[in-house]
Structures are given as C-alpha cells and as structure tokens.
C-alpha cells in the first residue's frame, strides 16, 4: 500500500500557503519535510498549512507534524492551520499542537490574523 501527498505552495502576501492533498501518516514525512524546506529556503516567516477536511490523520502523521513544528519553532516561524474537520481539530487540541500552531476556521480568517 503506497501513499503520496501532493503539496502546492502559494505565496499570499506575507503568508506562505502549503496546500496538502491526501492523508497524513508516517508516509507523509518526506513530502511534508520537502515542502517545508522549500518554503524555508524561500524565507517563509509565516506558514499556513491547509489540510483536506476528509483526510485521514493518524498518530504517525501527527508525529511528523510535531517534528515539523520543532523546526518552525527553532526558526521562529508562525504557523497556522486550516481545513481540519471538527474531529481532528479536537485531536490537535488534545495532543497539544495548538500550543505551537493556531487553527483557523477559514482561509480568510487565517490570512487576516497572520498578515
């Protein structure tokens, strides 16, 4: 069983949007890290992660995201998240991701707050 993520990067003013298609599991590690490195190399200071609302996210994927947050914390980057279902919003709160990244309801909310 293979899995691939498609991640598109878009610059929206001061915010770099990473639009992540597909499920978030341990198999997402290289895709997310490569996308982050691209954004980081272009000097991104504010990164907005957009997930698909029907994406399957498991603990392996959350671990990858936490490791990503360790890098953004080290590089003093601001992180926002959009596109999560209510269930995964609850889980991201539960495991503490919201201590290091802010979840927004909509892209407009995120851009207004982060710009």
């Amino acid at each position: 069983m293979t899995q691939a993520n498609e991640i598109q990067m878009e610059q929206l003013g001061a915010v770099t949007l990473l639009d992540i298609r597909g499920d978030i599991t341990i198999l997402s590690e290289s895709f997310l890290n490569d996308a982050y490195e691209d954004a980081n190399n272009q000097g991104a200071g504010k990164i907005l992660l957009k997930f698909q609302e029907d994406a399957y996210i498991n603990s392996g994927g959350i671990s990858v995201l936490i490791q990503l947050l360790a890098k953004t914390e080290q590089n003093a980057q601001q992180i926002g998240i959009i596109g999560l279902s209510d269930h995964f919003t609850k889980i991201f709160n539960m495991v503490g991701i919201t201590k290091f990244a802010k979840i927004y309801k909509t892209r407009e909310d995120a851009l207004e707050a982060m710009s």
Partner: protein
Amino acid sequence: MNQILDDQTIEINLPSKVGYERVAMASAAALARLGGLAPERVEDLKSAVAEACINAMQHGNNWRPEARVVVHMDVSADRFIVSVTDQGDGVPEVPKYPGIEKIIEEKVSPRGLGVFMIQQLVDKVNFNQTADGGHTMTMEIRSTK
C-alpha cells in the same frame, strides 16, 4: 480466540502492514453506524481503532506481515466494544505520552502518542496478555458522551 460471533459481532483478521488499519477502521465505522452510535462517537471510534491496530502491528508484531492482528467488534444499544489482539508479547509498560513541549523543546521521542489518543477518545481501555503469548487492547466507547 474462539468467541461466539452473532449478528452484533464482527471479526477481522489483518496482516501487519502499513495502511491495513484502515480496513478495521472502515468496518468499525460501518458497524457503529448500524448500531446507532452518534456521528461524533463514530469519528472517535475510527481513530481509536486505527491507533490500536497500528500499535498492534508496530509494537506487538514488529511489522512482520505474516503476524496477524485480530479485531473483534461487538455493538449493542448503548456501547461499542472492540478488542485488538496481536501475536507479540505486548509492551511491558504502556508508554506515556511525554507531551508536545518535551518533544519539541527537549527532542524527546513522541512514543506513546497513539495510546494517549486512544485513552482520550474512548471511555474505557484495558491491556491484557493472552494465553498464547499475544497482547489484547480492549476499548469501550459509549453511544453518546
């Protein structure tokens, strides 16, 4: 693992391969919906079943594809019980999630995250050794929270 199966019970036997937890997850969701679990609880159940299967495949069976994971599900009017059994020796101690601050600031391993999620998502969870050397995680989730 010879249990009586009736019309409220299903059992699935999975290889220990990445992604196969989704088979159990989808089956649990379908049975839970038939049993009338609230939609929010079905989502909790799906994540808990997925994490328990991954835990069994990874820590119980060391990702040996030939080592099986058996998922037994039983639904009733007010609750859903699911047990996930591996063929390994289980973990001597349930790992404790260190918390995100320690992972990020002290570079501690995120080990224990899956079990932590299960403990938060279900109403009851137990860990037991089986007579034939495997390990079973049994979870109970009520219809409404």
